[in-house]
């Protein structure tokens, strides 16, 4: 049974909403409205009842898979469990029924929470100041890079380049370009790490920053990080830390202590806020002292016991969000941090790393492990052995869906062929990990014995393999 479109439920004159009767004198809107701007024909939205709406979107939800449905081993996405208390907190009237322009004296509770969240993030990352304004990780990257740009502008240095390793998240080069930089990609070495020589070669007086994830997208920790930092700093450049993999290091190492100058967080990864099927996220940015002046405005400050927004920031890069960022997401992250406490956060990291290493050990004999280095919270396998039998990583991913499991991130990082990037997170347990391993083994066996089964996957999903090429060739983007 295919769920129809909501418009297919429509029946002329049916109503799913209710509004009070108008209680002020009625007027003819068309007459009052500036002439020529009245819409004669109403937009052709569906005409459906509340029952229709509820049944339709309930049915759609059942065609979707969330963390509450099972393991979600998407590498670099940190799909951990989203505690339900967070949802309850983020719906407290007293916390969320607030207009963004209410006076500060009416929202001291909210500002205190935001301020404490900033402090915790600074502590976790080893940075000196944090802005909560960016609404996503990528917006955080843009913000961080604009801060770097502004810093050099103020210093009177013209630095036009940003260095990005070839293993970096796609947002890194994209953000650098958005920020007006030229992107210089450097190759990883054979151990999957930054090639220090290549870096030295790339670095010059035009380099504004190196963007790095550590551990990198292979889950491997850049051991030479202090040397890397020195190379960049010596050339006058800055270090940007991509916080997507923060779940790997909490309590063990802080980006600030690795001499990073700027970083962004992903509250919707490390700090358990749900991804919402693609958003909202939240991407706070932390900086070292010397970059504070450039943070977006307004900056949340505290004066004795009073919290306030400081708009008087002449060197600020300006605003990146209309208001203060994704506040209701921050509430969830705050709740999470307070639930775990400092010790709990460290345990999160320990268990995330433990789970990933356990999976790696159990899977590496079946699927090729291109980089043998120790890894932390995630690791990357290659389906190249299986590819030789004519079965691609895409097929393997789709076959996982048949077994009711979500698939890892595939074909990323780009430096691994037929990549399967796996991050279980700490909220999975031995049983769900073993189930994943067993399924991966079964699939491997199927590839040996009946590869068509895998190539024709998925079969047990609401739809079978979808034709992406057709979608791009003949875009059907609306009804």
């Amino acid at each position, binding site marked *: 049974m295919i769920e129809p479109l909501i418009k297919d439920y429509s029946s002329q004159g049916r109503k799913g909403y209710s509004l009070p009767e108008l209680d002020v004198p009625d007027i003819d809107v068309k007459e009052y409205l500036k002439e020529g701007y009245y819409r004669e024909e109403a937009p052709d939205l569906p*005409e459906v009842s509340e029952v229709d709406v509820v049944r339709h979107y*309930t049915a759609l939800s059942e065609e979707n898979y969330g963390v509450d449905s099972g393991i979600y081993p998407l590498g670099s996405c940190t799909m951990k469990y989203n505690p339900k208390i967070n949802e309850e907190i983020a719906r407290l*009237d007293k916390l969320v029924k607030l207009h963004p322009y209410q006076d500060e004296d009416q929202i001291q509770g909210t500002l205190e929470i935001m301020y404490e969240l900033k402090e915790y993030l600074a502590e976790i990352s080893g940075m000196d100041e944090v802005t909560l304004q960016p*609404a996503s990780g990528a917006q955080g990257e843009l913000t961080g890079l604009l801060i770097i740009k502004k810093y050099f502008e103020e210093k009177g240095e013209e630095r036009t380049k940003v260095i990005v390793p070839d293993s970096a998240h796609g947002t890194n080069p994209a953000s650098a370009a*958005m920020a007006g930089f030229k992107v210089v990609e450097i190759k990883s070495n054979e151990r999957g790490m930054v090639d220090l020589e290549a870096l030295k070669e790339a670095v010059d007086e035009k380099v504004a920053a190196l963007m790095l994830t550590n551990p990198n997208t292979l889950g491997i920790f850049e051991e030479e990080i202090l040397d890397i930092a020195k190379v960049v700093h010596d050339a006058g450049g800055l270090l940007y830390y991509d916080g997507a993999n923060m779940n790997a290091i909490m309590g063990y190492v802080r980006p600030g202590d690795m001499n990073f100058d700027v970083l962004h967080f992903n509250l919707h990864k490390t700090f358990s806020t749900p991804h919402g099927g693609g958003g909202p996220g939240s991407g706070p940015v932390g900086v070292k002292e010397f970059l504070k002046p450039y943070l977006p405005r307004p900056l949340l400050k505290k004066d004795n016991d009073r919290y306030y927004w400081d708009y008087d920031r002449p060197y600020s890069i300006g605003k990146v969000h*209309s208001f203060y960022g994704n506040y209701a997401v921050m509430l969830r992250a705050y709740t999470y941090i307070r639930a775990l406490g400092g010790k709990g956060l460290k345990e999160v990291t320990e268990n995330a790393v433990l789970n990933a290493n356990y999976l790696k050990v159990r899977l590496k004999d079946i699927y090729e492990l291109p980089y043998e280095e120790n890894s932390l919270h995630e690791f990357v396998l290659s389906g190249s052995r299986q590819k030789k039998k004519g079965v691609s990583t895409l097929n393997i991913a789709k076959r996982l869906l048949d077994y009711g499991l979500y698939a890892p991130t595939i074909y990323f990082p780009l430096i691994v062929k037929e990549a399967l990037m796996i991050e279980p997170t700490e909220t999975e347990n031995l049983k769900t990990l073993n189930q994943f391993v067993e399924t991966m083994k079964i699939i491997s066996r199927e590839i040996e014995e009946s590869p068509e089964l895998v190539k024709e996957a998925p079969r047990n999903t609401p739809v079978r393999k979808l034709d992406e090429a057709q979608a791009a060739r003949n875009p*059907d983007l609306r009804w």
Partner: protein
Amino acid sequence: MDYISNTPSEKEAMLKKIGVENVEDLFKPIPDDVTFKRPFNIPPGLSELELKRMIKSKAARNISMEEQICFAGGGAYDHYIPAHIDHLISRSEFYTAYTPYQAELSQGVLQAMYEYQSMICELTGMEVANSSLLDGGSATGEAVLMASRISRKKKILMSRGINPVYREVARTYGRPRGLEFIDLGLNETVTDMEELEQKLDEDTGAVVLQYPNFFGSIEDLNVVKNLISARKRTLLIIVVNPLTLGVLKPPAEFGADIVVGEGQVLGNPINYGGPYLGIMATRKRYVRQMPGRIVGATTDSDGKRGYVLTLQTREQHIRRARATSNICTNEALNALTAAIYMATMGKKGIKEVGEQSFKKAHYMADRIDDMEGFEVVNKDNFFHEFVIKTPLPSAEIGERLKRKGILGGLDVSRWYSFDGFLVCTTEKRTREEIDGYLEALEVISSD
């Protein structure tokens, strides 16, 4: 409360399998000289019970809109939200999902996004829409970048009638790419069309206006349309409040090339400013220059209809530095909310919300304008927000209203060089509340 599932003995077993003694051994790759060696200076973890108590005690220091009556707008609006919306977006299959990378297990979100795109197109009259951007401000920023890519020009004429925070975000987005922002001044509350005519030239990549604008007024879009249609490579960007489009002619009819706006009004809670969602729609021919995720319909291997993320060659994970934008995570759940809202209100409701807001605002404005010492600056041209000149400074008026439990409006001198009080009336405000406001004004002004 740590949400970790592993028990000590399970950990033991796993460590053994991995072949290390302690979990600390797994962190050996981290050099000693960067290792963090003290405990975090973060309060100890709390049980749920303590957590709720602690946060509620902080919340008690807020005064929310449940405790006062909101006439504030300026980009964040207090509209009614039907009860079933939260019920539906709280379905964990929706909200605990990631971006639908594996389409076959993500048809729910994908189809909902396709419906969202379709309904945004219906509202705006445009041909295609993406499945959301981060908010109204960044959508405006993305729009000017997109227009510059299409027009290959850097000069952007931006009306001062656009929400000041959108303008600020747009500048933050545009400047690094070398865009030159030129303000268009105001005649009272609408854009000075003569100034537009003067400034519009060969080098103009885009003209940006808001509809209705920050003051609630309707710009002379017919004039704009004529001015721009004469210039082939200048794009018209219209920033909309989508909830007025059940009543107002869609921007497409004025030749809009890109329509953006803040989608909060479509069923999203006010949440102290976020998460909201940026809407964006454009002409079909510009779709490959549009940033953000787009869902398209296709068929599966059995020929059955299904949905996928499409046109991904625009995006960062494929094109990296050459992507149309760096945007990755968007505001999918807010877009889902908007889809459910648009479907619920439907053809009739979307119009009725707009009309009621309009009528209530006009009822209120007419009466304020009649009051001694008060004047509604844009009384002949506004939708559901209007600017009043007050006998006392508007900051003072706002302060006095606040004491009476009324969030009376916004002091525009915060953003502009003139004093004025921006008042917003939605369908949620009752006559009784409005009359209470009027009475309070009387008292304040006669004090």
